[in-house]
């Protein structure tokens, strides 16, 4: 499903507040600082990253490779893009945007987008 299809299904009202998905609202600024420190320390291995991509497109672990073209992945659509941005926020502490993702051609390009967080 391409983006225009999604929007035509009234899926236009998309607001991503992934940072709000996870935890109870922070009560103290000290807790906010601690959470921010945790975000800065977040990273994952290449294998963990590929497993996350597999989970996003609902493929078996080990399916996706770094040089795979995103356009060739059957389930890489606008919903997968939303899932990827949410995953990067939650597990890598990165605030990515859709325009950045649109410029990625391969899975490896996604890793480059997460520079310093995946190795």
């Amino acid at each position, binding site marked *: 499903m391409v983006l225009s299809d999604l929007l035509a299904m*009234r899926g236009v009202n*998309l*607001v991503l507040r992934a940072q709000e998905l996870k935890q109870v*609202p922070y009560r103290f600024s000290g807790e906010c600082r601690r959470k921010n420190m945790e975000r800065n320390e977040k990273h994952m291995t290449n294998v963990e990253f590929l497993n996350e991509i597999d989970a996003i497109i609902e493929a078996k672990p080990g399916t996706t490779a770094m040089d795979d073209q995103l356009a060739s992945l059957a389930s890489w659509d606008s919903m997968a893009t939303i899932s990827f941005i949410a995953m990067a926020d939650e597990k890598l502490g990165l605030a990515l945007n859709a325009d950045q993702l649109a410029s990625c051609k391969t899975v490896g390009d996604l890793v480059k987008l997460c520079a310093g967080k995946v190795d």
Partner: protein
Amino acid sequence: MLNPMDMTNRRILVTGASSGIGRETAVLLSQLGARVILVGRDRSRLEGTLSLLDGSSHRVEPHDLAELDEIPAWLKSLSQEFGAISGLVHSAGLQMTLPLHRVTAAQVSKLVEINLTAAIMLAKGMRQIEVLASPGSLVLLSSVVGLVGSAGRSVYSSTKSALVGLTKSLALELARDGLRVNCVAPAFVSTPMFEEAKNRLGAEQISAIEAAHPLGIDTARDIANSVAFLLADSGRWITGTTLVVDGGYTAQ
């Protein structure tokens, strides 16, 4: 000059008053003469809203609505301190956009707690005889996606849809207490949250969102106007309704 939305000296509490629709509603209510209690998690952001208000008898009240069972007692203590409350706007809420296969039960619970359960507990607190300055008015913030579907927003839309049903049942139950209960369902308006979404969504999605609003994307003031209409005597014979304020989004 006659002003059907005059709220001189009425005490009105606004949750989510730190930004967006909650902030804009608080500003408008102060301009209509109300004494506003600003509720949110962050004192400094609430003080930012306070600096925009007309008049001087407003209050900043940092509070975490996630402490759900404490809400009625907290409202009672507020009314003892500041006087009985004639209006309450629940603008605080969480959003989530995620495909169903990535949704967890914990995320669902979190959204239900803030968007729905907090609304119920605020109504429970508001109807207390020590709290309510009858006749009173409670306004909940639903959403157009509580009325029509939106792919990727099943959890958010279900909580917002629940508010429409809650509004009707509470309207019936609380009429005898002199408390009207209504709901406003906005589409996208220009708020800091929307500006942030622009960065996340990309140009293509943003232009599609704008195209889905025949009157264009407007401002939070357009929502605040409707909230004030329902709070004031202009809405005195209206209860149990959901007022759609969406620039034509759901007309299609």
